[in-house]
């Protein structure tokens, strides 16, 4: 198998960081990463980028926003059911 170069690696990165790449492809990528510092950094920081966005999401709707939404939808009577 021909050694993957940096450029051809790029297109497979999403699958690789999501863990959906085929095993053979993963091995190829890892072989390349072992010898290419720049690509290793790109992969690590790409993973971290996706992780940070996952970690920073807001989980609650502001109370006032919910109230106005229920009013607009004429659902006032159900406001307290949550």
């Amino acid at each position, binding site marked *: 198998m021909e050694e993957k170069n940096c450029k051809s690696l790029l297109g497979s990165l999403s699958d690789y960081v999501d863990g959906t790449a085929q095993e053979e492809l993963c091995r190829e990528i890892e072989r390349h990463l072992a010898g290419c510092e720049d690509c290793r950094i790109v992969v690590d920081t790409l993973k971290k980028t996706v992780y940070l966005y996952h970690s920073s999401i807001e*989980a609650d709707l502001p109370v006032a926003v*919910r109230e106005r939404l229920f009013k607009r939808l004429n659902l006032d009577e159900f406001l307290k059911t949550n």
Partner: protein
Amino acid sequence: MVDIDTGPEISLEALQAGDRAEFARLVDAYSIQIYRLALKMLGDEQDAEDVLQNTFMKALQSLGSFEGRSSLSTWLYRIAVNEALMLLRRQKPTIPVAMDYEDDDDELQHPTQFTDWCCLPEEELLSAESKGHLDKAIRRLPEKLRVVFLLRDIEGLSIRETGEALGLTETAVKTRLLRARLNLREQLSMYYGERLKEEQA
């Protein structure tokens, strides 16, 4: 990642029969996702609230014609995305459209930033200032990349669901997702690279 299907089981039958309590349950199950999506797309709380309200108004009006070919959540996301895009179109002149020329078939932008900032402490990576920057970076993405990234990586839809919500093939979703992620990585690398320099100074 938020699992969008862990909410209460919503009965489509009850919704279509005009059960208002069930509609209220639907609103509570999905309003945070819709609001968050709109907020991250538009960057303005008032605009996000408009999109949120319009989305459920439209949903209420078109429930009768919903055939259940996609899940309720995907259907709601589709309505919300259209509402947000309509708002963006109206505001277009004030929004930077840099890099909007990028096409799915164009060659991938090759990485230019090779700083390893992974070692920064979590409280620095996710400080209030950093979070503000994460949001800003999303808004600098070309629209069509932004919406794919938000649905897939923020809202946690699958590639297939993202495609359904946007009317895109899975291949197009994957291509745009990769472009979005690489673009954000570049932006974050510049930002965190600076933080790293400060820390080492």
